């Protein structure tokens, strides 16, 4: 499998990654959603606030106009001013100083007096001349034409933004004897007053630049540039403006001036202030998330350990089983799937132990190869024809020996002999087919086909001779007479399979070739042959020429067989 970052060597890591990944994703999405909702909420709230601020501003202007109008109305009825004007040639300086007194009385910094033609007669501000009181004259003209009792508006006076009011002096009502003009500056103090009431930053800006602001100089410069960029910013739309310290939700509110380009009232609220409460919520959400992650980590680790520990024990236990320990039982004490698995493994151990026992018994009764084939293919009646080398070995003079020895000693000696012979046969890949008293029938090439089964059989026979020599040396040391064997080997096509009844089966071979091998073994007793091992030409041919030193013994007739068999002594 290709390398993947999501392959984990440990189940606990995988579980941890899964739980934390899911939880983190959920929390992150929640956090983002909340954050987004907070931002939209803050924007909506800011906009609502700014609209209220705009109304408060409008109201402030309206109140200012109402106040100036009302106080100007009182002023026009003042006795002293009438005294001043009563003179045939009213003294302008006295009138000016009286207006100056009024500015203090009224709180309007600019008060001017105009004649019925709109000519400036006197002014509280010495710097103000006929030329720069245009907005007042504009208002007087408009009020006169519309036959209004008073008029008001916003415009520049001496280059500065003012709220302007004109009120007639009646002598008596409705005869107009002159006009009072009162002006109130829209300056930083005014902007600050709006800010004090609303908490909103206020800037008055036009093409002429910043008229008044509560912002710092660089910030108001940014706002002024936005306003100067054109009427696109106007129209009462809310947008976000990046100022030096924060992003501001900004409302551009155009304000018409008397005969001038409009001024834009820019109302702003820092987004940060609006988000403060939301920020706290987000902070808390973050803490809760971290705690949840920590708790989830601990739980996942605990859960993973609860799974991986028993899995590790299961793995260890299966190693024991692989090593052949079917006795030890695994105790998990769990009711879940792992508990069931442990029970199953224990049951498997029991099954394996039983099977092992069966196999063990089988091994002792049949050759390991036959046992393996039985285990694999099952014990079925059947057969196949195949080429097999059959070896018969017989203990010579066993009958006389049996008469001399007590039965236990006889059996012990026989078993000792058979054990040595069997070992040699198996060492050379042969399979003990059966013991027939003191005789041994062995197969080479069945049940498992082997290459060179003939050669192996011959080698086994020579090995058996050598093994018997060793055994005879031991027997001599024990003071017993030596043993002698005769071995017959033949290679032939025979029928191999399980032979017997349904209750009892033996794997064996049957056929003419088997009889020939038995017959060859019998021929070793013939003294003229002077050999312990006789084999057929078929075996030698199968073993290949020159592999063994042999001596031809001629052809013999075998009982029940048509034609002679050529036989050889193996030296």
């Amino acid at each position: 499998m290709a390398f993947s970052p999501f392959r984990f060597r440990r189940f606990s890591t995988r579980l941890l990654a899964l739980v934390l990944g899911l939880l983190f994703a959920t929390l992150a999405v929640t956090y983002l959603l909340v954050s987004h909702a907070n931002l939209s909420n803050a924007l909506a709230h800011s906009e609502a606030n700014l609209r209220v601020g705009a109304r408060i501003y409008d109201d402030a202007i309206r109140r200012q106009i109402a106040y100036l109008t009302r106080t100007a109305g009182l002023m026009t009825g003042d006795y002293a001013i009438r005294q001043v004007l009563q003179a045939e040639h009213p003294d302008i300086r006295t009138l000016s100083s009286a207006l100056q007194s009024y500015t203090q009385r009224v709180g309007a910094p600019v008060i001017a007096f105009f004649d019925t033609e709109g000519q400036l007669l006197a002014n509280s501000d010495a710097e103000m001349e006929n030329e720069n009181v245009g907005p007042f004259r504009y208002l007087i003209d408009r009020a006169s034409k519309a036959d209004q009792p008073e008029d008001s508006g916003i415009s520049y006076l001496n280059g500065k933004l003012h709220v302007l009011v004109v009120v007639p002096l009646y002598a008596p009502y409705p005869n107009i004897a002159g006009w009072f003009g009162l002006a109130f500056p829209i300056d930083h103090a005014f902007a600050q007053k709006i800010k004090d009431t609303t908490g909103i930053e206020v800037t008055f800006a036009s093409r002429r630049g910043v008229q008044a602001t509560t912002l710092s100089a660089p910030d108001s410069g940014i706002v002024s540039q936005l306003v100067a960029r054109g009427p696109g910013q106007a129209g009462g739309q809310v947008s976000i403006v990046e100022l030096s310290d924060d992003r501001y939700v900004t409302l551009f509110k155009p304000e018409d001036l008397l005969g001038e380009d409009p001024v834009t009232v820019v109302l702003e609220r820092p987004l940060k202030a609006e988000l403060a409460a939301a920020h706290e919520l987000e902070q808390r959400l973050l803490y809760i998330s971290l705690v949840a992650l920590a708790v989830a980590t601990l739980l996942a680790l605990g859960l993973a350990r609860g799974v991986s520990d028993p899995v590790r024990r299961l793995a260890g236990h299966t190693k024991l089983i692989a090593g052949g320990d079917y006795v030890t039982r695994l105790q998990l004490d769990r009711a879940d799937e792992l508990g069931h698995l442990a029970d199953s493994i224990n049951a498997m151990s029991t099954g394996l132990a039983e099977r092992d026992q069966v196999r063990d018994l089988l091994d002792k009764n049949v050759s390991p190869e036959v046992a393996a084939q039985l285990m694999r293919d099952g014990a079925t009646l059947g057969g196949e024809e195949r080429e097999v080398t059959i070896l018969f070995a017989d203990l010579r003079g066993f009958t006389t020996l049996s008469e001399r020895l007590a039965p236990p000693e006889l059996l012990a000696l026989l078993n000792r002999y058979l054990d040595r012979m069997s070992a040699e046969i198996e060492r050379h890949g042969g399979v003990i087919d059966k013991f027939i008293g003191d005789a041994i029938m062995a197969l080479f090439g069945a049940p498992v086909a082997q290459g060179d089964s003939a050669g192996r059989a011959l080698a086994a026979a020579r090995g058996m001779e050598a093994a018997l020599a060793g055994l005879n040396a031991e027997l001599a040391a024990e003071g017993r007479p030596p043993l002698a064997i005769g071995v017959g080997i033949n290679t032939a096509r025979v029928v191999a399979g399980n032979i017997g009844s349904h209750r009892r089966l033996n794997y064996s071979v049957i056929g003419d070739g088997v009889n020939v091998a038995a017959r060859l073994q019998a021929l070793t007793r013939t003294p003229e042959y002077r050999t312990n091992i006789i084999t057929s030409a078929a075996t030698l041919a199968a073993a290949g020429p020159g592999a063994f030193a042999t001596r031809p013994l001629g052809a013999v007739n075998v009982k029940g067989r048509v034609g002679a068999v050529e036989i050889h002594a193996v030296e």
Partner: protein
Amino acid sequence: MKRLLFAIGIAIPALLQAASAVGFRVADAKGAPVADAVVSLTPLDGPARLEPPTAPVEIMQRGQEFSPYVTPLVAGTRVSFPNRDTVQHHVYSLSKPKKFELPLYAGEAKEAIVFDQPGIVALGCNIHDWMSAYVVVLATPWFAQTGADGRAAITGIPPGRYRAEAWHPRLGKVESRELDVSGPPAASVDFTLALKPDRRLRRVHSAVPGGYK
């Protein structure tokens, strides 16, 4: 004539006994000297003889202010209000001891005003709200006005019992105490006045922008 003799009869012993002086020190609650306070000694043994000056006392208008701010005088004194300004003024008083007005005028006023009733007279100008002055009309010839150091002295006081009084524009009611004047060395009177905050209108000289204050 009989009254005159009587008056001389009081005056002569006083002269014989040698006139005394009284020093005044006027301070506010914080101990700072108070200027423009009027201190006076009113005899308790009998009414003092008042001799108003024959020439009128002058309270002029200059720089759109009255000058002086506080003018103490004995009852019966005439006061003229010359206008030394380029603008006209309209002087008036609504105070009980003397109600009057001098309608809008420039230069010398048409008439001098006689202040014949003791008491405090507040003066104003109908045109200029910030113009303010006080005339303190007294029923005793022994009075003085404190300087910047808060000190004033009254000399030539005949021995006797007196009511010492102090008044200031920022004082609600007159402070007074009794005093025995019995010749040298000079007596000393300390007044500590609980002055109200200064609420005088001040003239704003040029029309400065900035409506909200």
